[in-house]
């Protein structure tokens, strides 16, 4: 209670003073009434002020009172210099906000443990294989039989959990044509138990749901999905959902916190792993293996044990590979099993964005340092105008520590305002960046809680920022020598030296930011101007499924129906759209030519697909309705170079050799120019276009279960046709369902999402960095001119020319800019290696990538220096010297 009263008195100081005075007055009155001499009584109080101070100190927390006084004083100072304060707060807020946003993203994607029991003991298996060039490739998917063997081997040391890659799947709660998309993940039934998760509703999957293939058609919804899709309706239990060709009964809803094992994707529906049709196949790797290691079990022996099991499995499996060369099999069997920590889950998004986010973090950190340097210079300049005040404080007995506190409190207030504003910025910016990560129709869903982790980071950052820009000015203010300061003589040079050092640092960081921004922008432009080989504009894609399969003739009838729609100029069918990350590959065998280790790539297309895509035929002919696969093929130029040694292939044949040993013979009937295939990041691949009409090994037509109708439209907005087309497909033949409608242009744009995001953000931060550095330069130059006005005036009076004045003013700053730029170039060159994987078609060591930012920086420096030089030149010596 007494501490509390002492704290409250800090904020009611006047009332306390009043009370003390009142008590003294009462004392005096009493004494006079008792007959004492009034003058004597008053004298006994000595200095009433001093006595009051002593009593006051006894009754309040003295240091808190000092702090309160400093805060009030600091607040007045900040208000007095509105423009400077606003500039400092805004630049710091932007930098702090950007840093916090970057931390939120990195934390959510890589650091935050999954909300499950034993997250710290959670690991994931991966396989490392040397590729053709000997550089290691890493995979993390396994076949179920392999998983089952490893799980049995690890018994007692660790529990293995199968979790499929979460995939965006067509599903429906009705039997009609209303397909919708949902994120479906097949998981081991025992996962929920091992993770210590409790159902919100109904039950979760159990080990019993995963005992045998295909016997447990049960589904568990995630809480998030239950809320989004069903509005938390408890009636959802017992309903059925059609996924693929299966029908699942909903038995429960998961806990609120758990959104799956892949940060960046919120799983909607969990199904038992045993319900995946691929569960019996040893040649289909579709699941990640999560490992919950028992306490105290060493990792390495466990890894070796599982490695042996996995190697044995793969060796047995490879014996059936007739189609693969012995060399490739030997390469493959050099695989090594790894156990990697996965406390925060595993996802593709992590792999795709790890480096990008780290580099983004580096950029924002550099911007933060630039902002800090700016504010530090600002504070130093301010402190110069306060030397007399500080000297006075020292003279009347203020301690050094007290002065440090005074300045630090003021700076901490500045930092706190910035942090508050920055928090608002981060509140908006982090979800904004996440929403830009994936294609618009399939956005990344990253859970971004603003909890104590973010708060602690923000507070630490604010503290660091305060010390970074505030400590030096505070120490300098406290080390003031009252004698020299009050005499008016200062030591401006020491102060300016540190300012110039800060300018050099600013320039160096700014250069690095500009350099990286340049690299990212060039990468995006390069990727964006890659020749596609086809025309994506006005091309509408109707991804369609026929769950029970339909013969090719039925597919082409549907294409004819679509062709009759007004606004549709041309229609073709393909197995899937180009640039949708699908790949279909096989070894290529050509009679008379030794087998290449390179793989050939395939895509099935209907007649007139080339015309619809606006791909030119170099020679030969297009498919007609009697062509089939195996049978005919159209190949691209790289295919000819790779497999026919560049010779004219028309009329010649090649075989697609499959790992099982089966061979499919194709005759080349046409040649097309190279075009993009699966991804714009890949080099041009050898591609064979084969007919959509396919036969199996016995010559029986293969019904197609899925495909895409490509519609060349005449309107400006192809997507406006989508509702009409969906309805038309459903009415024409109920066996078909349109599962997705998008444009080819979207697929092209999706290829460059990460690069565009990086380029945009880097450009933004480069602009901010440049602006801050220019402001800093301007500020320091103006300050130094202001300080040297007398000297410059005298020089002009004795006949110095404009040129020499300009040189006088700018030499030092020019030297620091050059030193900074040189340091920046060194920094950039040193770090460019680690950013190379994010680049495409750009070499970090390319001189033009270094020269451009240097020129931009120089131009900005000149622009920033101009006002100060003009000001120096306009100094009128007679006025200046008279004023002295």
């Amino acid at each position, binding site marked *: *209670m*007494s501490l509390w*009263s*002492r704290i409250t008195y800090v904020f009611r100081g006047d009332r306390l003073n009043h*009370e*003390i005075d*009142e*008590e*003294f*007055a*009462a*004392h005096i*009155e*009493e*004494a006079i009434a*008792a007959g004492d001499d009034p003058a004597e009584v008053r004298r*006994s*109080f*000595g200095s009433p002020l001093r*006595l009051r101070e*002593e*009593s006051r100190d*006894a*009754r309040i927390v003295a240091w808190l009172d000092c702090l309160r006084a400093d805060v009030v004083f600091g607040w007045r100072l900040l208000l007095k210099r509105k423009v400077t304060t606003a500039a400092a707060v805004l630049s710091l807020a932007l930098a702090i906000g950007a840093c916090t946003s970057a931390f939120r993203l990195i934390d959510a994607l890589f650091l935050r443990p999954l909300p499950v029991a034993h997250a710290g003991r959670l690991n994931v298996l991966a396989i490392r294989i040397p590729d053709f060039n000997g550089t290691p490739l890493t995979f993390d998917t396994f076949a179920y039989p392999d998983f089952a063997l490893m799980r049995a081997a690890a018994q007692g040391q660790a529990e293995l959990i199968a979790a499929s890659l979460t995939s965006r799947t067509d599903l429906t709660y009705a039997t009609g044509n209303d397909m919708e998309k949902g994120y479906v993940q097949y998981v081991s039934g025992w996962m929920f138990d091992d993770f210590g998760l409790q159902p919100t509703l109904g039950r979760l999957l159990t080990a019993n749901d995963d005992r045998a293939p295909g016997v447990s058609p049960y589904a568990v919804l995630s809480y998030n999905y239950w809320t989004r899709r069903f509005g938390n309706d408890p009636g959802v239990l017992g309903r059925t959902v059609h996924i693929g060709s299966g029908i699942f009964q909903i038995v429960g809803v998961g806990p609120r916190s758990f959104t799956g094992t892949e940060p960046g994707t919120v799983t909607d529906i969990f199904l038992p792993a045993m319900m995946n049709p691929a569960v019996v196949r040893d040649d289909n790797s579709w699941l990640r293996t999560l490992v919950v290691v028992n306490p105290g079990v060493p990792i390495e022996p466990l890894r070796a044990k599982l490695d042996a099991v996995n190697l044995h499995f793969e060796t047995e499996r490879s014996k059936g590979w007739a189609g693969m060369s012995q060399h490739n099999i030997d390469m493959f069997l050099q695989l090594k099993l790894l156990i990697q920590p996965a406390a925060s889950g595993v996802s593709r998004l992590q792999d795709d964005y790890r480096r990008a986010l780290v580099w983004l973090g580096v950029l924002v950190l550099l911007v933060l340092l630039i902002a800090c340097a700016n504010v530090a210079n600002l504070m130093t300049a301010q402190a110069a105008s306060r030397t007399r005040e500080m000297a006075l404080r020292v003279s009347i007995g203020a301690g050094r520590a007290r002065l440090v506190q005074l300045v630090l409190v003021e700076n901490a207030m500045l930092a706190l305002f910035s942090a508050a504003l920055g928090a608002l910025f981060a509140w908006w910016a982090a979800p904004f960046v996440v929403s830009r990560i994936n294609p618009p129709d399939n956005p990344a869903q990253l859970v971004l809680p603003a909890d104590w982790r973010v708060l602690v980071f923000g507070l630490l950052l604010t503290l660091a920022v305060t010390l970074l820009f505030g400590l030096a000015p505070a120490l300098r203010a406290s080390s003031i020598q009252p004698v020299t300061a009050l005499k008016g003589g200062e030591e401006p040079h020491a102060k300016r030296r540190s300012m110039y050092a800060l300018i050099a640092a600013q320039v160096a960081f700014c250069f690095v930011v500009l350099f990286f921004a340049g690299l990212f922008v060039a990468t995006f432009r390069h990727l964006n101007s890659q020749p596609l080989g086809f025309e994506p504009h006005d091309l509408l894609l109707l991804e369609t499924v026929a769950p029970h399969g339909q013969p090719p003739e039925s597919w082409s009838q549907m294409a004819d129906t679509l062709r009759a729609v007004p606004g549709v100029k041309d229609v073709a069918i393909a197995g899937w759209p180009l640039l949708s990350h699908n790949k279909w590959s096989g070894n290529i065998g050509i009679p008379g030519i030794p087998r290449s280790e390179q793989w050939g790539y395939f895509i099935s297309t209907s007649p007139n697909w080339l015309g619809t895509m606006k791909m030119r035929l170099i020679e030969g002919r297009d498919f007609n309705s009697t062509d089939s696969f195996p049978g005919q093929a159209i190949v691209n130029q790289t295919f000819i170079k790779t497999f026919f040694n560049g010779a004219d292939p028309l009329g010649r044949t090649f075989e697609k050799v499959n790992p099982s040993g089966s061979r499919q013979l194709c005759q080349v009937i046409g040649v097309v120019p190279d075009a993009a295939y699966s991804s714009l990041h890949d080099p041009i691949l050898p591609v064979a276009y084969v007919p959509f009409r396919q036969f199996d090994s016995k010559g029986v037509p293969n019904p197609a279960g899925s495909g895409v109708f490509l519609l060349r439209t005449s309107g400006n907005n192809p997507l406006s046709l989508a509702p009409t087309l969906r309805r038309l497909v459903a009415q024409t033949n109920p066996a078909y369902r349109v599962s997705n409608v998008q444009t080819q242009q979207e697929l092209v744009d999706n290829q460059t999402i990460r690069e565009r995001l990086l380029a945009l953000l880097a450009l933004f931060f480069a602009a901010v960095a440049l602006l801050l550095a220019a402001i800093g330069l301007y500020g320091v130059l103006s300050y130094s001119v202001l300080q040297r006005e007398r000297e410059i005036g005298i020089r002009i009076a004795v006949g110095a020319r404009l040129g020499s004045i300009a040189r006088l003013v700018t030499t030092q700053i020019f030297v620091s800019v050059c030193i900074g730029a040189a340091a920046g170039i060194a920094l950039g060159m040193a770090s460019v290696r680690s950013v190379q994987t994010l680049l495409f078609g750009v070499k970090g060591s390319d001189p033009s990538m270094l020269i451009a930012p240097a020129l931009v920086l120089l131009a900005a420096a000149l622009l920033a220096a101009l006002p100060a030089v003009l000001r120096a030149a306009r100094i009128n010596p007679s006025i200046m010297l008279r004023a002295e």
Partner: protein
Amino acid sequence: MKKTDTMQGSLDLLVLKVLSRQPKLHGYAIMTAIKRTSGDVLNAEVGSLYPALHRMEESGLIRAEWAAKDTGRRTRIYQLTAAGKKQLAAEVTRWHTVSSAINRVLQEA
């Protein structure tokens, strides 16, 4: 925080003792009580008394409240708290120990 040099320590002791005899006194009354009962030997200075009173109040040994006077003014009156009584007992014991020790030293000479 607690300075216990002899003079200050004894002032605290005197104030506590006065208040234990007669609760609810204001500062002037405490001062005159010390002067009177010591036979005009001990004289508490205003400059020491009030800081001491305020310090003891903050450490919870005495409690203060405002009381209205006939003149219309308010005056601040003090009384012992339970902690103050305990402190007084301890101080008295300590005083006796110290003074008898000092006496012994003086008698030795």
